[in-house]
């Protein structure tokens, strides 16, 4: 009791670890053994990880075919304003030396297409894409309205510049039999994109819902006619469209195009052999275009790089480790008064 009173009255500060700054603490010293152990552990971990990653990425197969040059004539045709709407098809044969096992994905790849431009990525109208109000085009400048004032659906620079080449992969069993490789265009988007972020206006008939609007400038078809085969894949929830709308991080990027439908010949993936891409070339741009066939590994197909990164880091760590051990051993001989400056 008296103690308590005294505490209240006198100005003696409380003797608690917190107030006296004497909280129990562990000190991290850069002592030799600790540092060396830490470096050793980090190095070992990285090396092991690196090797695992490199090995696993070996299992992934990728084939990339750049069709910019091959389809150059189509591009040239396009440049002519008269032929703007004309379809031009070019065919690229290639040989798959090894079979691609498992799920095979087809990507299109663009070189030098700046989807990450500051003005570009904001030129879209999310509320329009959500199907709430297709006339809401306020963020889409300058691709908001057509000349006659009707709103563009879907509006904005992103939608306007949508990749609309058609790529068809055929399997040339022999020179005569060309089997069109069955491809699926579903499930190439995030589930949330397809079912949450992109919604068609609620109307029984899509074309009615899109009435009073204009298709984007560069598009040949309106949004509700994007997929003639699957009526459920039209409008804003068209998979290709959704994929495109997810703007790529780098100027060189690939995007999901199709995935292999593992039926018939292709239940185990793409067998080795001759293939050809039949590309309906629509638009050209200053960069290059390629088509990629790839399988995925467990790590999402990051390629060799992560493995290398781990390996190199691990190697560096160990290098440092050895140099430090050397220095330490040298120093041990003349152990000493370090307080000297």
């Amino acid at each position, binding site marked *: 009791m008296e103690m308590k009173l005294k505490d209240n009255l006198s100005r003696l500060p409380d003797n608690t670890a917190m107030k006296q700054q004497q909280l129990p603490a562990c000190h991290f010293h850069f002592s030799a053994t600790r540092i060396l152990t830490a470096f050793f552990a980090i190095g070992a971990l990285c090396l092991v990880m690196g090797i695992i990653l490199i090995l696993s990425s070996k299992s992934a197969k990728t084939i990339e075919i750049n069709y910019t040059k091959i389809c150059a004539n189509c591009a040239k045709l396009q440049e002519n304003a008269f032929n703007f709407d004309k379809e031009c098809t070019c065919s690229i044969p290639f040989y798959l030396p090894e079979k691609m096992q498992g799920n095979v994905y087809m990507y299109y790849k663009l070189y030098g297409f700046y989807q990450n431009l500051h003005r570009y990525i904001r*030129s879209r109208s999310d509320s329009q894409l959500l199907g709430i109000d297709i006339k809401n085009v306020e963020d889409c400048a300058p691709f908001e309205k057509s000349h006659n004032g009707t709103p563009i659906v879907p509006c904005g620079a992103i939608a306007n510049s949508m990749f609309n080449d058609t790529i068809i992969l055929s399997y040339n069993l022999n020179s005569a039999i060309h089997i069109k490789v069955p491809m699926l265009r579903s499930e190439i988007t995030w589930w949330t994109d397809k079912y949450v972020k992109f919604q068609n206006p609620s109307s029984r008939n899509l074309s009615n819902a899109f009435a009073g609007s204009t298709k984007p400038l560069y598009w040949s078809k309106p949004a509700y006619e994007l997929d003639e085969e699957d009526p459920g894949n039209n409008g804003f929830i068209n998979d290709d469209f959704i994929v495109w709308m997810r703007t790529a991080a780098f100027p060189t990027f690939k995007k999901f195009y199709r995935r292999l439908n593992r039926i018939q010949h292709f239940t185990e993936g793409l067998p080795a052999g001759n293939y050809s891409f039949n590309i309906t070339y629509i638009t050209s741009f200053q960069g290059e275009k390629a088509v990629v066939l790839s399988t995925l590994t467990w790590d999402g197909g990051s390629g060799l790089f992560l493995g290398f990164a781990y390996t190199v880091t691990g190697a560096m760590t160990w290098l440092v480790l050895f140099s430090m051990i050397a220095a330490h051993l040298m120093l041990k001989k003349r*152990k000493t008064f370090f307080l000297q400056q």
Partner: protein
Amino acid sequence: MEREPEAAEEPGVPGRARRGRRRRRRREGRTRTVRSNLLPPPGPEEPVAGAAKSARHLADNRLKTTKYTLLSFLPKNLFEQFHRLANVYFVFIALLNFVPAVNAFQPGLALAPVLFILAVTAFKDLWEDYSRHRSDHDINHLGCLVFSREEKNYVNRYWKEIHVGDFVRLRCNEIIPADILLLSSSDPDGLCHIETANLDGETNLKRRQVVRGFSELVSEFNPLTFTSVIECEKPNNDLTRFRGCIIHENGKKAGLYKENLLLRGCTIRNTEAVVGIVIYAGHETKALLNNNGPRYKRSQLERQMNCDVLWCVLILICMSLFSAVGHGLWVQQYQEKKPLFDVPESGGGSLSPVTAAIYSFLTMIIVLQVLIPISLYVSIEIVKVCQVYFINQDMELYDEETDSQLQCRALNITEDLGQIQYIFSDKTGTLTENKMVFRRCTVSGIEYSHDANARRLAMYQEVDSEEEEVAPKGSSLSQRGSISSHQGVRVMYRSQSVKSHRRTGSRAEAKRASILSRHTAFSSPMEKDITPDPKLLEKVSECDRCLATARHQEHPLAHLSPELSDVFDFFIALTICNTVVVTSPDQPRQKVRVRLEVKSPVKTIEDFLRRFTPSRLTSGCSNIGSLATSKSTHKPGSSFLSSLSSDGTLLGLEERLSHASPAITNNGYGGGRADSWVPDGAPQERELRYEAESPDEAALVYAARAYNCALVDRLHDQVSVELPHLGRLTFELLHTLGFDSIRKRMSVVIRHPLTDEINVYTKGADSVLMDLLLPCSTDDARGRHQKKIQSKTQHYLNLYAVEGLRTLCIAKRVLSKEEYACWLQSHLEAESSLDNREELLFQSAIRLETNLHLLGATGIEDRLQDGVPETIAKLRQAGLQIWVLTGDKQETAVNIAYACKLLDHDEEVITLNAESQEACAALLDQCLHYVQARYTHSTPEKTPGTVSVGFTPLCPPYTPTASGPSLSLVIDGKSLAYALEKNLEDKFLFLAKQCRSVLCCRSTPLQKSMVVKLVRSKLKAMTLAIGDGANDVSMIQVADVGVGISGQEGMQAVMASDFAVPKFRYLERLLIVHGHWCYSRLANMVLYFFYKNTMFVGLLFWFQFYCGFSASAMIDQWYLIFFNLLFSSLPQLVTGVLDKDVPADVLLTEPQLYKSGQNMEEYRPRAFWINMADATFQSLVCFFLPYLAYYDSDTDLFTWGTPITAIALFTFLLHLGIETKTWTWLNWIACGFSILLFFIVALIYNASCATCYPPSNPYWTMQALMGDPVFYLTCLIAPVAALLPRLFFKALQGSLFPTQLQLGRQLAKRSPKKLNTPKEIFTQGHPLGDSQHLELGNMGTCGSLPQGCASQVPQPTQQPACSPEAGKEQSAVDTRMSLRDVSLLEELSDQAPEASTPQKSIQERHPGDSTMKPTSTSRAAPLSSIFNLPNFSSFNWISSLSLVSGLGSVLQFSRTSLQSDKQEGDFLSGAPQPERNLCGLREQTVDYF
């Protein structure tokens, strides 16, 4: 404000009043007129409430310290916040977002952080304001009695309801609510005592007096009858001055002085009740005008930080420009081709490159704004507040004796404490206790050494150093002397009373208790119990006996020999020549009053005549009868008469005087008491407590009491002294001429009860008093004798000074009646004059204090505070330069300096005493030559060492002297004045820089501040000034950090200071521990901030290369904006508040670690840029690793940006982990919290709304990433790879080139509990392993910091082994060696390691340095040729050689050596001293390195 006189004085016709107002404003500008509020309005035009209304123009007593009202808070606070440039900047950036062409974020979102910061600051301000409001409210609602016109009585009112012109009645122990003019007091003399502790911290009682004219009122004061008008000054903040006059209805004027004014905040004591009229109320009171808020200083670190912030701005602009140019080029490249991804202008045309570049530039500035850390300022403020809190909470800084802990008054310069380079200290009260103890005295030329007293004091030293417990103190007391037994009991009683106060309850009581204990500490037993010198005691009692028998004879004093007469007078003077008030402790401050007939000190000529004539008796004062009839003698009266009758000037006087008065005699009363007095040394019935204005007064009174000459009662008009045989002597006190710093003396004029002569007793500084003595002729024997006494006394005074005692001279003058009358007339004139009163009183005092007869002198010891030498040694080891600036005289100062180890006996002392500007210049030149000569030949000795510390003349003061004894400089006030002149200050400073310590004596407050200013501005050094008194205030204010000692000499220093410590020794912990921590924490935090922001911005910048420099960001705007504020801020705050790079005990044992702060090791420009480089590297790694990992994937922009954000967060935390030295659970929690917060926020944010956050639309991104192994893989590798180099370099540096701090850390780690065990690393190969720590210190300082070693001298046995050996060797070769050179030194040093036993005698290692090196001889020759013997050659400690230059100046080069008396007259040697040669040590270390 200006209108106030108008309304009160002349409420005329409105039209006229307006004109008149302007006129009067000019006229009345300096005065205020106050009249009673109870009066009906003076003018007919004014409505009834006129008086009250007029008072309303003046400030009422409501206290309002709040800045804001509810309405004004928002605009006012915002306005204030926008004074900070950073806030304006951030708002500008946020507003830029509202421009569509350049916006980077959602405009509303961009405002969020700014608003958040503003809100936090506003909340803080609001809270502060609210607490101010609450305390205001409490104070405003205190109650007091105010006279009400309606009730015709005093009624209870709140303080805030008091107006100017109200009548307030205050009772004992009440606090005064406003500045009140004292009109009536229950005290019959019209006196009132107030305690001003709240105002200035002084606990003695101040006397206040009822306004003249009111004190004579017989009946009780009735406010209703008060019709006078008071004219006084406008409110001002001068506590020591108040002037005005009161104009009575009849037109009579009376002056008002500060003695009439009761100040707000003081407490009424010793007086039952007082009544007064309020003059100043509320904010116009002097107390509040004196109260300026906390100071706002900017710390050095903050200045440096601001500079680096500017660098950041520059970098930001460069980045933005680069990006803008890049974007321009990029646009140009694509311009012709119209790419698909181009977003043309709304018109259809594409953007021109220039416009695009400009847009890009602006957007970049927004995106990269993070580089300028918005949260930096807020974080720093938070950290500093926490630091201040922790400093306040430190138990080690709590002083039990005074129940006070350290106070931080400035909130934002805590880190400056860690960078101090120069300490400027006051002496008295700062280094010393300001507890004055009578030590010894000399009377009539005979010295009484008081050996027993010295022993007693020595004993206290020991007791003091122990725990403050009652029991040991009491027992030690009981061993002493005859009077000790009851004193021991008294000590018990005192502590008991303090304890009981602590138990009683409320906080206020506790404060009172602390004040009380502080007050009684003022007269601690140490000061009270003086052991008398037996010889002197014998003489005093002889006087006593002699006088007791002779008291009824004609000339009692004539029976004494001149010496005994002097002894008697000496003690009478000690007893009464002061303003000590006597109280007794059992009746708190309640005097037992015995009324006497005499009203007061002589006030008028009539008064004089009345008092000095018998007629007064016949005129019949009412209350004197009983006293007058007491036993009295006629003799004094007759002698008085005879002396006065010769006075022809006072006509008509003699006639009345011829009737001897039996009634004048106060001694008659005393005589009556004498019979009942028990004349032996038995304890008095009641203990007397002496309350003095200054401690040395009390010391002298206690000293006199020890000689049985006790002051028993002091009234305003009489002093009673009790002597064993003589009984109670009552001296009629005619005048008291108080002490002032210009006269440096005080006097009392009394009438001696035995001789009835009018005596003047003067007590003052010897320097002034010795000049005022009666010039004695050398012709007669008496004069010669007197002369001899004077010279002897002077001699002893010097001796006292050398011992470090404070000296006071006591003198006496006997006035003849006519002399007195003559003086009195002029004095009364002076007193009654309205203007120029002070000046006239001063003149009058000077007229009185001449032709004095010297009685003797006293030496009062002002003891050093506990731990001062140790603290100084530690601080010095820490690389701090300590300058002492004191007003004391040179000898005293030098001796105190020796006592506190500021000066060392084996260092050279340069003394600068110059009489003129030219002399000073010449002296400075000579000293500089001398100093340079020392260095030119000491430089080669340094080169053999492993570390060459090249001497450059301008390098910092603590590096150059690698060998030889260090220098000290002593300079007196006059020389200092010359040295501070523009043309000499550089030289002076250069010289002072070479010196280990500098001592400025006799310096004025202004000089103190000038010195500080000089060092601060010229050396660009961090300065700290510490002092306790009003004379240190200017110095404290000028210095970077001002520290006040919250001791005994009032609160002015504390009020002006940034930090207030209870004692000097707390400075050690404050600087070395807390200063270091604060600096280190804040430096690291600031660096970390810059690193963090640069690294984060780097990520964004690298991305620009991949997005056509279009200022787009891959990191979601939310993360971008809140990253700094939310996710990464807490851990660094925790680290900034709690991290301890080196534990406190290591810091204290290795004070040299403090130097890291001084040298700005942790936060120097290089560190900043290294940090930036590291940030760049880390950002490269953290950008390109994910880039390459996600290259050629189908990832989208923000899905790729989120891992980068996570990586950045991990990297930051890991980086912080590397930088954090101590990990407490708080750190862990903070880090865990940060990570969790990030992921939780990200998950919630990414799940909350599908399309709400354009353009990123991060819906489900985090969730998707959590299922992506690449995300984890990159998050793992990137931070590791990024931090690898840092870790590597840190480890490498830690093991190869560790800094001192790292070694200190290792030290703590090696033996975390007991630091005193030998450390292997430090002892290895060392011949002596007895005190590792000191050696460690020496090692550390050997290479570069010699004074670290030098300060080890106090412990001779702990010297490095080489020192004694080397010294011994050297003394052996000393005689034959005329030239000492490098080879010898090396030889000596080489021998050092072989020394196996430490030599005890330090003296031996001081050779007579009568030799000089050729280099120095040539330079110093002109100097040495004019050396001669100094004054103090007889003292062992000094062998000083003074130089009388042709310019009439004296230079003393004092070679302080313990055996130097043998070499008196030898030339001062400039050669380095090998006894503390550290090269040996260094070589040793070389061997083992």
